């Protein structure tokens, strides 16, 4: 009986991890939090929590008054809620990375690898301007959909 229960649990856990990695491979992120969406998207795309490790989000949320050159400070309660949401849904594949976590999504190893085919002229084009402008190519980025099928690289 005990053996059967363990086997089923193990099977379920494996299934869940297969499903979640399949989900990640699709590059579609569905985690949602109203405050995260509202506050982050006031200035830029609400970057999905899965794009950075938890430690990066934790650090970033403690220094919002100096957020990439702008004051993005929030009241403590809102900041705490958003930080918890980001960390709970953060990227989990790069646990082995050493050193200080990058706060810039575009400096992560996975970002560079995923975008290594993008020519320099696309990055510097008027439509893109900067690498953090996901929606310039990922047409459904606002919905957390970064899949290949919604990708339209501007000419």
């Amino acid at each position, binding site marked *: 009986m005990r053996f059967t229960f363990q086997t089923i649990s193990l099977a379920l856990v494996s299934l869940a991890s297969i499903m979640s990695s399949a989900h990640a491979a699709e590059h579609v992120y569905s985690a949602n939090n109203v405050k995260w969406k509202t506050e982050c998207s006031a*200035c*830029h795309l609400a970057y999905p929590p899965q794009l950075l490790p938890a430690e990066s989000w934790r650090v970033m949320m403690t220094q919002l*008054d100096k957020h990439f050159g*702008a*004051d993005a400070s929030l*009241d403590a309660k809102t900041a705490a809620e958003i930080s918890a949401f980001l960390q709970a849904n953060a990227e989990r594949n790069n646990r082995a990375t050493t050193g200080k976590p990058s706060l810039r999504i575009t400096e992560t190893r996975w970002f560079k690898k995923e975008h290594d085919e993008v020519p320099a002229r696309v990055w510097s084009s008027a439509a893109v301007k900067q690498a*953090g402008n996901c929606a310039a190519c990922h047409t459904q980025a606002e919905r957390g959909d970064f899949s290949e099928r919604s990708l339209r690289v501007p000419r």
Partner: protein
Amino acid sequence: MKHIPHKLMIMLALAATGLTQPVFALTAADTLKQLEQSAKQTDPTFKGVSAQRGERLFKTTHGAEWSCASCHTDNPAASGKHAKTGKVIAPLAPAANAERFTRPDKVEKWFRRNCNDVLNRACTASEQGDVLAYLMTIKN
């Protein structure tokens, strides 16, 4: 007097739908009055707001890279664009965007952030009043 029953209706409607925070708590004119009161309390020499001073504050830089107009443009009735991210910013002038300056929490948040970015310090209530007075002179 005309406004009170209207506001009451909104409050009742919101209470009925279970929303705790009214969407439009104040008008921009109410916000300006509050800023004037706060300026009077903190500065005994305060002699009222000035749209002219507000316009100057809005359109010029103050030692930092950005002015208010860097993102909101020289025409606050038009849509702006975030100087760094390119995100479209809805018009700031109340005549063009009725939601502006109606929520004290948002007013506090954005003056705090943006004054820090533009002036490297907090704005006084009198300065905030000047800017709002200027924005209220803009016709759509």
